[in-house]
């Protein structure tokens, strides 16, 4: 071995120095918003870098947000839209992925390609057509309209990820079930729990874009009653642009749930992306 212990330790140190620099760069802006949201206006400007203490602490921004914004309603809209879209995507996506990865039949490759178009071509490009369709169906300013769009948006990626995972499930298991007389539907239900590790990757590539989307809420469901968090925050910020306390607090309130969810699931997310990638 040519590398000495000292050289290796030096390299480790420089690795971590670079990583720390970029981690600071990534966190610093978020940190500034969170800490300053708990300060009185005077100190947001007077002492932006300090941590809030008993002198500078204030909740005035949060009070403004809670009394003047629609944020609680926006949250529940986002939750309804994201959870129902995700549930439908998982159900329909796993069914299609199972059929495509399990059976060799005429048209398999074509259907796989047809569904893959949606991975590369953004659904946004069909917006003019989508809005016409939504008005024809009377779904403008209805959460159901958003859910249908997001199912179409999320399916291609989900089918792709799930087929990757499903083709790793050992054949013996399914053959044994077939010999026992299980129906194909039964075998699908047998396979489902085995691809649970794929959920992390689906969370990153399917669920987060739905929660964060601005475009379709802005175009298809812009009314106050149906606005999602992303749109609600955007509109609130537009109105309260000069009220710094309210701006910082609403940003923090919109960020924190996502950050907590992410920290909770980040390990599983990474592991699941990795598991899919190594195989393919």
């Amino acid at each position: 071995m040519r590398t000495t212990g000292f050289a290796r330790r030096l390299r480790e140190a420089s690795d971590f120095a670079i990583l720390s620099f970029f981690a600071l760069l990534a966190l610093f802006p978020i940190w500034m918003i969170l800490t300053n949201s708990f300060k009185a206006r005077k100190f947001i400007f007077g002492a932006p870098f300090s941590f809030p203490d008993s002198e500078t602490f204030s909740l005035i921004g949060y009070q403004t947000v809670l009394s003047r914004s629609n944020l609680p309603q926006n949250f529940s809209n986002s939750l309804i839209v994201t959870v129902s879209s995700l549930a439908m995507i998982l159900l329909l996506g796993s069914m299609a992925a199972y059929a495509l990865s399990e059976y060799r039949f005429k048209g398999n490759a074509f259907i796989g390609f047809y569904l893959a178009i949606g991975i590369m071509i953004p659904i946004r490009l069909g917006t003019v057509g989508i809005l016409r369709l939504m008005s024809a169906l009377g779904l403008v300013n209805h959460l159901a309209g958003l859910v249908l769009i997001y199912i179409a948006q999320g399916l291609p990626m989900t089918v792709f990820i799930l087929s990757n995972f499903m083709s790793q499930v050992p054949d013996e298991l399914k053959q044994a079930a077939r010999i026992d007389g299980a129906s194909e539907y039964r075998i699908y239900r047998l396979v489902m729990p085995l691809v649970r590790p794929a959920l992390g990757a689906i969370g990153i590539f399917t669920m987060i874009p739905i929660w964060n989307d601005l475009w379709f809420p802005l175009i298809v469901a812009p009314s106050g009653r149906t606005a999602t968090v992303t749109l609600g925050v955007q509109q609130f910020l537009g109105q309260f642009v000069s009220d710094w306390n309210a701006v910082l607090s609403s940003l923090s309130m919109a960020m924190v749930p996502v950050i907590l969810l992410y920290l909770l699931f980040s390990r599983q997310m990474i592991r699941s992306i990795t598991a899919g990638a190594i195989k393919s």
Partner: protein
Amino acid sequence: MLDLRRNKRLPFFIVVFIAPGALIYSLFMILPLLDSLRLSFFTTSQDNRELWNGLGNYARLFSDSDWAPRFWGALRNNFVFFSIHMLVQNPIGLLLAALLVGKGRARGVYRTLLFLPTVLSVVIIGFIWQLILSPLWGVAPGMLKAVGLGSLFRPWLGLSQTALITVSLISVWQFIGIPMILLYTALIGIPDDLVEAAVVDGCSPWNIFWRIKFPLVLPTLGVVAVLTFVANFNAFDLIYTMKGALAGPDFSSDIMGTLFYRSFFGQQLQLGNPTMGATVAAMMFLIIAAGVLAYLFLWQRRVQSYQL
């Protein structure tokens, strides 16, 4: 895989499995997309009837004195936007991915933290950076002053020479997690014995990376490039949040996504025009499709030969 090709008819359960998803996908993604492409060949009359217009909308977009400067400007800006992502986001993403590979819990923590901005909404990111860079708040000028560079501060977002570059770098800041995580998974997928053999042969870490690991992650770099291309030519939210639909100052941060929005919905005194909106969307479609096809047929074929 169960071979069903010898069945005369498609077994019914396959239809049950595929049809519901394929139906919703066709109805809400493929058909509206085709409808949009079709509309780009029509105009609407006063009484809202569709009139065939051939390539008239396209001619208008490319050469009409109202439309052409906006279209060519947005297209040029979009290529600048994309170049900055390719030159800054993806190389740094590769660097971070390379540094994250290795043992130790600390690396896992860094991985989690570095990916964090990627999961936040673009609207939030846009506003955060607007505040940080605001001369009013003074965070950015204050930090520059602390390192003795206070005189370098400009209201970057407000100047037409720097607005586009600033917005691009903010987008890079947010999405760096995507190339990082994709390249990271590719790097840890490289078989250990390959790297160990090189170490035994006395290869330096630098050479191991460039001679062994880099060629093996080239396919993933291709995926990263095409994903960046598609995302960039479809971008909208960040610029809409930070600069509004007019993508100011003086359209200097205007890209295809914001042009599409303005054409479709109108802005200030100008009414929205669905057929011109569909035409802009059709151009975005052609650009994105060309990028994807170039990747599939030029890049992917050539790079396959590197694979083990």
